[in-house]
């Protein structure tokens, strides 16, 4: 007779799930529901007077050109950062994967920046590029280029893009390196014997075989740029000049915390929440099914 352990109780599975469920409800669902509820309210900063207004915060938001400006800024910022950090880290990973001296040393050094907190990264870059005191900006000036991220929106954008890209390269590098190491060497050797050049081997074999990693990283990077670059922006530009670096997340903070407009801020968070749900859905659908080896 076969021996099988069975659990008859209906309660036990739920009891085992309970801790995880509690954590999810308390830290994820409850704040999310609060945000949705708050987005239907107009309230003063102290919470002394509250009015239920249904979708007014949303209509107000979409009637303001600033919101679309911020959306556009976010799209530009995230696509530039995602593209740069993915391509630079892929290049670095491919190089580090070769048989070179001190390979492990390079790898370790390249992973380091990931340990730096975003706000600290922002301050580091600010020190280098601050218009009057920054070391790098002084060097740029001696070359005759008028570098001024305090007033020029493009300069400020370039600054946050550099800081955000630098910060993300390590993470991407790690995944690309792992992905490269899992590509069977025999396939590459076979094509080398057939006479394919290194560049051709990369584009026809390595790159397609890396596509699941690349796609996963693309989604992770976009989510990173949407949410985790807040510290960098706050420390370097504060969303300025003239909103040139104000992303959607920074705007939530700015309106809600500095402006005391909790309803409008909550409405923005709800929209962001919908975006992330969309991104995650795409990731699950495509990573699981469409991207093929």
């Amino acid at each position: 007779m076969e021996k099988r352990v069975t659990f008859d109780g209906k309660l036990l599975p739920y009891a085992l799930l309970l801790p995880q469920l509690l954590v999810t409800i308390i830290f994820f669902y409850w704040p999310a529901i609060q945000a949705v509820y708050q987005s239907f309210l107009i309230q003063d900063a102290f919470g002394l007077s509250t009015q239920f207004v249904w979708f007014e915060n949303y209509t107000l938001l979409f009637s303001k050109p600033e919101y679309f400006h911020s959306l556009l800024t976010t799209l530009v910022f995230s696509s530039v950062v995602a593209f740069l950090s993915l391509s630079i880290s892929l290049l670095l990973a491919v190089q580090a994967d070769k048989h070179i001296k001190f390979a492990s040393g390079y790898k370790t050094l390249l992973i380091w920046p990931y340990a730096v907190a975003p706000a600290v990264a922002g301050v580091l870059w600010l020190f280098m590029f601050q218009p009057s005191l920054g070391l790098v900006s002084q060097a740029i000036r001696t070359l005759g280029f008028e570098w001024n991220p305090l007033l020029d929106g493009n300069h400020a954008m370039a600054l946050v893009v550099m800081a955000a890209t630098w910060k993300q390269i390590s993470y991407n590098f790690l995944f690309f390196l792992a992905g490269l190491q899992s590509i069977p060497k025999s396939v590459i050797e076979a094509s080398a014997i057939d006479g394919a050049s290194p560049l051709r081997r990369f584009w026809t074999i390595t790159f397609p075989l890396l596509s699941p990693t690349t796609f996963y990283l693309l989604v992770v990077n976009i989510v990173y740029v949407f949410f985790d670059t807040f510290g960098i922006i706050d420390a370097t530009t504060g969303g300025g000049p003239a909103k040139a670096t104000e992303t959607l997340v920074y705007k939530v903070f700015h309106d809600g915390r500095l402006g005391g407009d909790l309803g409008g801020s909550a409405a923005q968070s709800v929209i962001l929440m919908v975006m992330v749900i969309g991104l995650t859905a795409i990731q699950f659908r495509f990573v699981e099914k469409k991207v093929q080896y």
Partner: protein
Amino acid sequence: MTFRRTLGATLFAFTALSSVPALAQVEIQWWHAMTGANNDVVVKLAEDFNASQKEYKVVVSYKGSYPDTMNAGIAAFRAGNAPHIMQVFEVGTATMMAAKGAVKPVHQLMADAGEKFDPKAYLPAVAGYYSTSKGEMLSFPFNSSSSVMWINNDAFRKAGLDPAKPPKTWPDLFDAAKKLRAAGHDKCGFASAWITWLNIEQFSVWHNVPLATRSNGIDGFDTELKFNSPLHVKHLQNLVDLQKDKTFDYSGRTNTGEGRFTSGECPIMLTSSGFYGNVKANAKFEWSNAAMPYYPDAAGAPQNSTLGGASLWVMGGKKAEEYKGVAKFFTFLSDTDRQAQLHTVSGYLPITLAAYEKVKASGFYKANPYLETPILELNNKPPTENSRGLRLGNMVQMRDVWAEEIESALAGKKSAKDALDSAVKRGNEMLRAFERTVTR
């Protein structure tokens, strides 16, 4: 040995604790936003007060920048554990005033506690800023300042200018900055910290032109911004023109650019008189300050300046005995000698008339005229409806919007007129939103 000593100390502590339950001190939480030398001043004040009596104990906590402190206080109030005393910067005044029930007005606090309190003892320009139109003081003035022009005397002499005759008008200032620029300050002739406070708010008050209707918001929340007048446009246009060759150089929205003065990079800096402590500690050159410049063709200019800095708000819903302690602490702060000493050490304004007279009589200003500059500015002329002060809701966020528009103009993306029109329009929308949340 060590063990025995520790044991002894513990035993002593136990007996000390158990023997004085009747004399348990009432704790008063004071949240503040002062850093550096000014933080030391706050800590010292609390220590002195705690040493002066046994019933109450003031506990100070630093809560970050002014907006951070205010937001921490608001969040704490919503969570039901607000501090007793909260330091709020002047632009948060309208928000705090509108929060009836969340705050306890100072005049009421003093009356309830039976503390002697005469609003007339305080400098009118200071007390007026934090009082209702009926003259009831709502918050307790703490660190007050006004905006002044800081001058690098050495740089002036090098450029052939006389620091004893600082520029009086804006055109004079522009000329001086051009000369300074030619004499080696090619990255910054002059600069301004707090770009909106100096060039919109104080600018309007000093020229006796309305920043907003309804006495800049003091008479009611139904106020509308007015700072897109020809005079304002002319001033911004001048700054835009001078930005091109760095005769004027934009230095950010807050006071982070002040270091450009102490480092010697910018020989003229328009900023708060509270910059004094920093200049005294860090400037390695001879310096002085002077009143803010004005446009000579503007009728009535210069008028008088208005306040910056912060006041202490008492939060609502606390116990009577705690309020009594707060009232005692405010009386302690108002003491003439203490105020006179605070003024001469920190560079902030004396808040009582008696303290001002005392410092004046001591001849202190003869040797330190730069500490009197802001007081003379504030008292330059009897205030008009345009110069009593300002009280606009959503001011923190509004300042950012105004700064954004100024940045667009300085970067050449918008004309000065378009930038100010847009700043007024966007500001008015915020004022309406504020009016809506407070008038229900």
